[in-house]
């Protein structure tokens, strides 16, 4: 067999296989080009899921005929001005996208620079035509027809039109999140699938970013997002983290951007899990969108042809920064529970039949017909009588512990959870606040309080360690054993004392007394996995906290126990001063707040 050079068309098709694995990848490359060209508006059209046509139109800087001819050559790029791969400032830099796409499709580029004429260039299956004069507005339009016609095998592996379109929309959305100042549209030729206008008003970058994130992740997110902003060792992290009570069962809604580049990185999911571990059940995942700004020299983006992965020179710093910043944001949020909870509650409320006050039907709906002062007077007239909750009839609450209004002062601003008014169904505490009511799940709330107290005791008192009479030797991969042994000090603070035992094994000498008789081998192996994947001893912490949370569950006030007003108020006051009292250990809310305005809306007063 003789060795020969492959023809260039084949080389390009092979390269295309790496860069353009599906229509979404082509869309991503083209949109990134448009962003690098300084576009303010990018319109994407996909027909048949991108199979017959992908068209990306921008209003960027455009290209001249000569540039265009060069652009479709391999490794030709306008980016990377000083040929330094360690300082990549643009989205692209490899000079591969256009020739790769051109190698497997019929590519038409039409472009007009600001001060030039429009030219058009056709590329078919890798064969380049000559530039033709054309007519076009400023900017560039790239049209990709019959993608993969030159590589039928790839064509066969495409999923349904809908799936491919979804992937493409996802790719554009990710980029859109990083570029709030650019407007995007994606359509399938008939319907607009995603659109967001350029966010360029003067309300500030943060508000613009949040609006853009809301366009992609939903309004729930923007309403329940905490601002994250932190800097350490020259790495800046900003973005938004969702409240724990807003959670999903996949990590899909966790976005990470490094220098404006959307990346998928295990590091992010691990760090997020670490930061939220206390607040969510294991299978639930919060929503976050985080942006890392880092010196381009400290990050290698040239890992993956599609550039969805990056490598940090010091992943530990980035991870620590993410965990620290998220924890900080969550701690500041205190006991705030997600508004989605209140919204769900409101959605579930139905206007009651039967009117508690006969005269009420005469009340005009839609206060706009009354003069403002009069409306207020009427409202105050119909305001609930102090110390009594309308609608509380004997049947629905067997023994409501109605609280007298001597505690009315508590409803003021100092006490966000207000004054306890009653306990209903011996499970929920109803409290009145300055501008609404709060319903507290007494068991969930107390459980969280006990849990926080235990955790604090654990932190202050140190973890008791039970020595092992028969030290347990656990065989592991040598690298893993070394990694565990390197962290021995940190682990011993958590009650696990181990050391290296020859090569490829560790010996465990002491275990946390809290765990009782436990499967040490399984624990150490889980720990090793955690260290490998996320660089943190999460498994051990989780187990300790699991014991705490079981004990907390058993040691807290159950649903069904009657509380007297003093007890209820004491619970509310403690919730206010305890961090993270807004959700139970499983991410469910411990209380919901209904604003007076919401209640009034329910009754048609607004």
């Amino acid at each position: 067999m003789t060795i020969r050079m492959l023809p260039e068309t084949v080389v390009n098709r092979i390269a295309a296989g790496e860069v353009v694995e599906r229509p979404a990848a082509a869309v991503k490359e083209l949109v990134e080009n448009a962003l690098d060209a300084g576009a303010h508006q990018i319109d994407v059209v996909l027909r048949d899921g991108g199979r017959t046509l992908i068209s990306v139109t921008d209003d960027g800087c455009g290209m001249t005929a000569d540039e265009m001819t060069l652009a479709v050559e391999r490794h030709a790029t306008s980016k990377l001005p000083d040929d330094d791969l360690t300082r990549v400032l643009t989205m692209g830099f490899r000079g591969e996208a256009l020739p790769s796409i051109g190698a497997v499709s019929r590519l038409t580029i039409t472009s007009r620079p600001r001060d030039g004429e429009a030219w058009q260039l056709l590329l078919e299956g890798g064969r380049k035509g000559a530039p033709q004069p054309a007519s076009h507005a400023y900017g560039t339009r790239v049209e990709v027809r019959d993608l993969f016609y030159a590589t039928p095998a790839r064509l066969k592996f495409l999923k349904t039109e809908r799936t491919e379109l979804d992937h493409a929309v996802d790719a554009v959305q990710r980029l859109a999140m990083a570029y709030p100042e650019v407007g995007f549209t994606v359509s399938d030729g008939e319907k607009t699938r995603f659109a967001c206008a350029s966010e360029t008003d003067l309300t500030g970058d943060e508000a613009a970013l949040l609006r853009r994130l809301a366009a992609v992740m939903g309004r729930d997110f923007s309403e329940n997002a905490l601002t994250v902003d932190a800097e350490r060792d020259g790495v800046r992290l900003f973005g938004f983290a969702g409240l724990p009570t807003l959670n999903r069962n996949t990590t899909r809604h966790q976005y990470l951007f490094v220098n404006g580049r959307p990346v998928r990185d295990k590091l992010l999911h691990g760090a997020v899990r670490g930061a939220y571990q206390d607040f969510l059940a294991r299978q639930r995942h919060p929503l976050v969108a985080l942006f890392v700004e880092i010196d381009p020299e400290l990050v290698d983006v040239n890992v993956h042809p599609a550039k969805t992965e990056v490598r940090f020179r010091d992943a530990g710093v980035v991870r620590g920064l993410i965990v620290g910043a998220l924890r900080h944001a969550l701690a500041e949020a205190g006991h705030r529970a997600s508004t989605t909870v209140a919204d769900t509650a409101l959605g579930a409320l139905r206007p009651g039949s039967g009117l508690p006050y006969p005269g009420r039907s005469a009340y005009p709906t839609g206060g706009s017909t009354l003069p403002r002062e009069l409306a207020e007077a009427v409202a105050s007239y119909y305001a609930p009588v102090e110390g009594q909750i309308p609608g509380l009839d004997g049947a629905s609450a067997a023994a409501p512990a109605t609280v007298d209004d001597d505690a009315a002062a508590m409803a003021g601003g100092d006490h966000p959870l207000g004054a306890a008014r009653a306990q209903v169904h011996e499970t929920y505490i109803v409290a009145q606040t300055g501008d609404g009511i709060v319903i507290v799940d007494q068991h969930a709330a107390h459980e969280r309080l006990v849990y926080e107290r235990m955790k604090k005791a654990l932190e202050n008192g140190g973890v008791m360690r039970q020595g092992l009479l028969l030290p347990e030797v656990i065989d592991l991969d040598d690298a893993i054993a070394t990694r565990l042994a390197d962290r021995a000090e940190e682990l011993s603070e958590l009650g696990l004392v181990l050391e290296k035992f020859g090569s490829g094994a560790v010996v465990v000498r002491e275990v946390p007394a809290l765990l009782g008789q436990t499967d040490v081998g399984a624990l150490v192996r889980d720990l090793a996995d955690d260290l490998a994947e996320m660089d943190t001893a999460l498994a051990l912490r989780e187990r300790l906290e699991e014991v705490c949370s079981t004990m907390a569950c058993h040691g807290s006030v159950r649903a069904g126990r009657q509380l007297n007003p003093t007890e209820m108020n004491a619970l509310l006051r403690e919730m206010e001063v305890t961090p993270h009292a807004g959700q139970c250990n499983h991410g469910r809310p411990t209380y919901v707040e209904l604003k007076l305005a919401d209640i009034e809306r329910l009754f048609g007063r607004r």
Partner: protein
Amino acid sequence: MKLTIERSTLLKALAHVQSVVERRNTIPILANVLLDASDGTLTLTATDMDLAITEKVDADVSQAGASTAPAHTFYDIVRKLPDGAQVEVETDAAASQLLLRAGRSRFSLSTLPIEDFPVLSGGDLPVAFSLTADELRAVIDRTRFAISTEETRYYLNGIYLHAVEADGEHFLRAVATDGHRLARVETALPAGAEGMPGVIAPRKAIAEVRKLIDETTNPVEVALSDTRMRLEFDGIVLTSKLIDGTFPDYERVIPTDNDKVLVVDSGVFAAAVDRVSTISSEKSRSIKLAVNPGSLTLSATSTENGSATEELEVGYSDSGLEIGFNSKYLLDITSQIEGDEAQFILADPASPTIVRDTADDRALYVLMPMRV
């Protein structure tokens, strides 16, 4: 099969065998007890495939035969019959029902074919010896508390029985450990046990044996192989599989150079530990021992509950030492001490401590300390 039997006789035998039967079974026949009547004797057998108990009782058998019946139901019925009742047990012609009659009560229990009932054969048991019930009780009681319940180290889920020679004397030695503490008890090696293999008797079998020998005064005949053991006394035969594993080299973990000897009044000490540990947290139960010449201060603190201390007069003349233990482990050990005094042999706060009964040098306990 047709027979008549005294209710109390049947109840006692059923109580013995039915406790082997698990409450929930994936194999239906294992929920049943095998009844076999012949020559004035009724033989009852129950098994969970690892452990089988067979008991023979006198009965007035008018027609020999065999059947099986749901063990727990059968037991509950007999338990609720009036004292002194005569129970008639009979199978119907097709042997698909077991009929019970006592006084005016009638029960009909569905049966399963006897052929399905698994036989746990003893196989060849080359080693045989005899132990007094007292010896066996002492050996089990002083070790079983230390048996591990953690299933991954299955070889610790039982008592390790083996023959040893020390200073020219031969002993039968029983050892149990859960990795945190260890109990070792010896008794004179009975005749016939010289060549016995080291075996690990599983926890469930130990618990059953202990229940069965609670009242007997007769010697217990033990027969062993590498994989099975059989105990026989008072018409009861218990056969059990042994744990197929290697018991760790426990001798290595028993310290030999501990030199600080603390002697406490075991009753006073146990009561004090119990009192002080009330304060320590529910899960870790830690308690601290501050030993000084002539005195011992027990203390416990918990961020939730507060703290407690108690001072005891003890025999100690070495340098001062502070050491922490799990109070439950201390109580487990002190409750096994029959003499007035317990002897703690200490080295330092991180090393295993030996506990002995001053009145009984056949038992030895090792306890790992707890640390903050």
